[in-house]
């Protein structure tokens, strides 16, 4: 049976992990490879690296970093942030990432999704959606959550899937950073709309939050950042808890 996935997310700037990861005993908490290894040891199912510098000068640094990570950990990982061209996608996949995550550029140029999916296969194209409740719909925001688009997240998710996205990384801007739990309504609305896997993101604060997003909102994977980075819970603890409550996870 396919397991539900637990995914720590790391923000990368100029090849270093930002928002310090407070693992005990980690010699260099800014080194993406060390952090990845630590999560590997905890049994994380995947990792997501988001390059928040995402400028053209930094592309080479990022590709070199992806290569280094791929040579040091033997687990799947996704790389996102500022990816705008087929060539970027090719370089990152060839460097050893399992998947790339597209956000702003996919909204601006949806044909990027279809051409990437045709070239590399849907299974490695993740579309990241940052959504915020506005009246009676969830609006898609781009540019790291700074720019509203007027686009309905449900319609966008459906379109992205139709164009060939293989997975959706859904972040609730309303819940992100609150530790109040995932946005179950938003996540449920999206998982009901598309037939591709959905990673829920934003709001994890308690063990129960993971259970709820899987059982009540149909998520296939749950992503968290600070909860893991500050060692409130380890990935292992989360998975053991879920297993005890009857959720299929990889232990």
């Amino acid at each position, binding site marked *: *049976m*396919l*397991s*539900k*996935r637990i995914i720590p997310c790391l923000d990368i700037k100029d090849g270093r992990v930002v928002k310090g990861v407070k693992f005990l005993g980690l010699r260099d908490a800014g080194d993406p490879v060390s952090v990845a290894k630590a999560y*590997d040891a905890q049994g994380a*199912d*995947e990792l997501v690296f988001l390059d928040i510098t995402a400028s053209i000068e930094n592309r080479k640094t990022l590709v070199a970093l992806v*290569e280094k990570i*791929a*040579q*040091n950990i*033997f*687990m*799947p990982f996704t790389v996102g942030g500022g990816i705008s061209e087929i060539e970027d996608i*090719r370089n990152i*996949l*060839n*460097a*050893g*990432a*399992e*998947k790339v995550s597209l956000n702003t550029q996919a909204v601006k140029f949806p044909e990027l999704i279809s051409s990437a999916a*045709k*070239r*590399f*296969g*849907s*299974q*490695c194209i993740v579309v990241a959606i940052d959504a915020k409740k506005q009246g009676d719909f969830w609006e898609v925001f781009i540019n790291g959550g700074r720019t509203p688009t007027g686009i309905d997240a449900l319609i966008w998710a459906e379109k992205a899937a139709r164009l060939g996205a*293989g*997975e959706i990384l859904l972040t609730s801007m309303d819940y992100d950073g609150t530790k109040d739990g995932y946005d179950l309504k938003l996540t449920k609305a999206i998982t009901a709309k598309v*037939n*591709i*896997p959905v990673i829920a993101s934003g709001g994890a604060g308690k063990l129960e939050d993971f259970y709820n997003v899987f059982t009540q909102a149909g998520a*296939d*994977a749950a992503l968290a950042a600070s909860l893991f980075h500050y060692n409130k819970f380890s990935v292992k603890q989360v998975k053991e808890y879920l297993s005890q409550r009857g959720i299929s996870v*990889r232990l």
Partner: protein
Amino acid sequence: MKIAIIDYGMGNIHSVSKAIELCGAKPIVTNKKSQLNSCEKIVLPGVGAFDDAVTELEKLGLIFAIREQIKNKKPFLGICLGLQLLFETSQEAKNKEGLGLLKGQVSKFSVKSGQKVPHMGWNNLEDILANCPLLSGISVKEQVYFCHSYYPEPVEKDIIAATSDYGVKFACVLAKDNIYGVQFHPEKSQKVGLKIIKNFVELC
């Protein structure tokens, strides 16, 4: 021992290469026929579309070379798309045929089965063939990492060395003489995956 990893511009060779090194062999990343010849084993990784992969292999003149190496009984491991390419045809490719070394076709998961497509994440190995060297020491409780929309449907059922269940039960490890193929990514499957690569290096 030198193991050739065929580099045809389709996906991750770094993890495979490093994993082989960790398992005590020398990885040779190459797209040259002569090097396939001088290595003792061959790995064909692959991420991407079936027809593009065939086109790239054709451009490099490797189709015939791979067939020849396999016919000469050199141990061969196809990973994900690298496994699918061994078949005759794929539903993913309308105008390109595969290497035709295994009889059968590559099919797409049907959304009618109630499952989401792609099949993405960690799933169990089942029906493990007891004497398959590639799976030596691997038990049915183990999970491996999948990331695919298409799966192999071999005509010869006796070459299926393990299955996995995703709405349909599908072949995820194949073994026929010196030909081995895995639909999952051993290079991304942590300890279990490394064990499988070690088995290929040492036992196949």
